[in-house]
């Protein structure tokens, strides 16, 4: 049962990612990415990360991807034209990616027995546990990230505002 769920949503992730790759219009890519993020949220649930699943949907799919969609709309991005850019990207990059994925898959699969087996409900992290660690042990990084977001907002406003 667990396995079925995993395969289903895992497959959905991969399918969404591939669609992002293959679509020409950026809005299609954005929507595929939303699919990926939602599937990832389910996978987080399967791994016992309740809070993160919620945050994933709210923050990532709900805010960030909406931002992307807005910008696509704002800039009226159309389908991609075919331009000849860089051959290095294809010649050097694609083999690099292939090496990357095959190597990583190989490592992980060969270490399969050393890693644990996930069972549903075996380790569920409640929000209160998470917040205890976050606001007690890691308070400083938390505050720093809030300042980071503040700066990011200021920067975005500064960059995107029209010049007079």
């Amino acid at each position, binding site marked *: 049962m667990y396995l079925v769920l995993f395969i289903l949503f895992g497959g959905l992730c991969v399918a969404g990612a591939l669609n992002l790759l293959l679509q020409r219009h950026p809005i299609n890519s954005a929507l595929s990415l939303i699919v990926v993020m939602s599937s990832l949220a389910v996978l987080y649930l399967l791994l016992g990360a309740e809070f993160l699943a919620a945050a994933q949907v709210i923050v990532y799919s709900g805010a960030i991807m909406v931002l992307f969609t807005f910008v696509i709309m704002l800039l009226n991005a159309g389908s991609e034209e075919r331009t000849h850019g*860089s051959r*290095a*990207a294809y010649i*050097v990059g694609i083999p*690099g990616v292939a*090496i990357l994925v095959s190597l990583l898959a190989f490592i992980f699969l060969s270490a399969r027995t050393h890693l644990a087996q996930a069972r549903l409900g075996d380790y569920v992290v409640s929000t209160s546990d998470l917040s205890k660690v976050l606001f007690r042990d890691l308070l400083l990084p938390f505050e720093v990230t809030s300042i980071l977001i503040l700066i990011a907002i200021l920067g975005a406003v500064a960059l995107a505002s029209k010049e007079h």
Partner: protein
Amino acid sequence: MNGHSPLHLWLIPVLPFVGFLLNGLLGRRLPNALVSAIALLFTAAPLALVLNIALHFSSLTLPHIEWFTTPWIATATFRADFDFLLDPLSLVMLLIVTGVGFLIHIYSVGYMAHEEGYWRYFAYLNLFMFFMLTLVLAENFLLMFVGWEGVGLASYLLIGFYFQRESAVEAGKKAFVLNRVGDFGFLLAMFLMIAHFGSVSYARVFGAIADHPQMQGGFLTAIALLLVLGATGKSAQIPLYVWLPDAMEGPTPVSALIHAATMVTAGVYMVVRSHVLFDRSPFALGVIAIIGAATALFAATVGMVQTDIKRVLAYSTISQLGYMFLACGAAAYSAAIFHLVTHAFFKALLFLAAGSVIHGLGGQQDMRAMGGLRKTIPITFWTMSAGVFAIAGLPPFSGFFSKDAILYQAFLSPTAGPILWFVGLVTVLLTAFYMFRLWYLTFFGEFRSHDVHPHESPWWMLAPLVILAILALSGGWIGIPQALGGADQFAKFLDPVVKDSALVNPEGSLNQERLFTVLSVVMALTGWFVADLLYRRKPGMADRLVARIGGLYALLVNKYWIDQVYNALIVAPLLFASRYLLWGAFDRGLVNGGGSMAAGSVRGLGALVQRVQSGNIRSYAGWLALGAAALLLITYFGFSMHL
């Protein structure tokens, strides 16, 4: 500085060196008189020292060696020091070098009075004296080699003294290069000595040879032959003589000092000094004798047809040096040195007198433009005559005694023999002929130039001529052999040095010696007679003879085309190889090419790397992905190796 009862031998070479430094560094700004004073002073001082030593010679323990405490080369396996040796042989050489050298310095004051570069001339001359004295005083082959090389250098500088003349420059180079070939032999001989004896010191090498009477031939022959190669270069014998006629481009006093009296005799001195070595190799002695006799005859034939007065004397020098070599080859070492001494007197005299003639004629050197000068420059005439008589070997002049000693010893010697004696005898005839030819052409008959008015030279030049003439006349009287009633003092004087030669010539009889003496005098007179016939009594006959033996005459006038042969066989291929192989292929191709290839490859590499900086984000991303993959690979494999 150590040594038993020091005589300060080191001063003898060093004083002229000081003169060289003073004249060389400051001479340009000094007046000529001061330059001459310095040069003469630093040449007279060693002469005074040598005379002093000579006076007290009998009270010295010989051989007298002095050395410096500062070592020169001191390694675990080899040692060489600044050692000076005084024995009868080196005393004789010292007297000649300082004595004749001093006279020629005086002569030069007059001869070079109006020349540019006066200071340079005397600086080089003093430098030459320094090196020659080092050569003669050295106690080991290495220090002798320093002097050997140095006189070659001084010779180069002085031959090319008139450096604005192309021919002079070429002659200087030729002399130096040919000397270098000889020096190569000398160096190899020294290396062999070090290999076999572990030292180049006379005492050690000759002592080692003397201690082992069974050492014969073999490597000793090799060393001997290599030394002979060096000697043929320095003393202008076959095959390395071709530089000496060209060396006449230098000023005449230089020809007198270097190319007659001292430098060219260094080869003979070296052979006599190493006689212990040569005595163990009859083969080498035979080679020396053959070279000497052949050169003597060869040079005499070429000298017969020369028209330049200095060229005649140059070939005459080569021929007389051949006599000295013949004597060495016959193991008659004291005879060789005796001839060296008398030759120094009369050859220097002849050159200086020729210089006086040239000076008096304002630079004319061609004998065909001279004639009848005995009335206009009488002192030069009488002194030169003394020289001519001496070289022809007419009694009672010095040349007679020395030449006869050589010829008789050559006849007796197993390494030389009657054939070479005969060659020497024929050469006596030819020598007399060409010297008297020179005499008649220059001083007798009608004066053949028109615009010149010959004048006698200043007394600076005449005084040395007179002194040398007296020596040319009387210098041989110290060596009158027993056959003619003398006491053979010269040979006895040199006995301590050359006596224990393993090679002893068979004793001849006194009557045989007298017979041979008469023979050589007859030959000399015959030569005189023929010269008299062709050049005084019947002047036109010479030209008619020449017309009849045209081919032979051409051969002689062109010096047997030896220069051209050497040029084609050796010089031209060398030039070709250097120009095309060494310069063209190697230097321009490899070295320059290597440089530009290095630069080009850097540029190429740079161009390649430049492509990474394309400004294109995607290519950057591509390289990033590859880099990340590479890192991952390395980490994985590194990890798994360690695990």
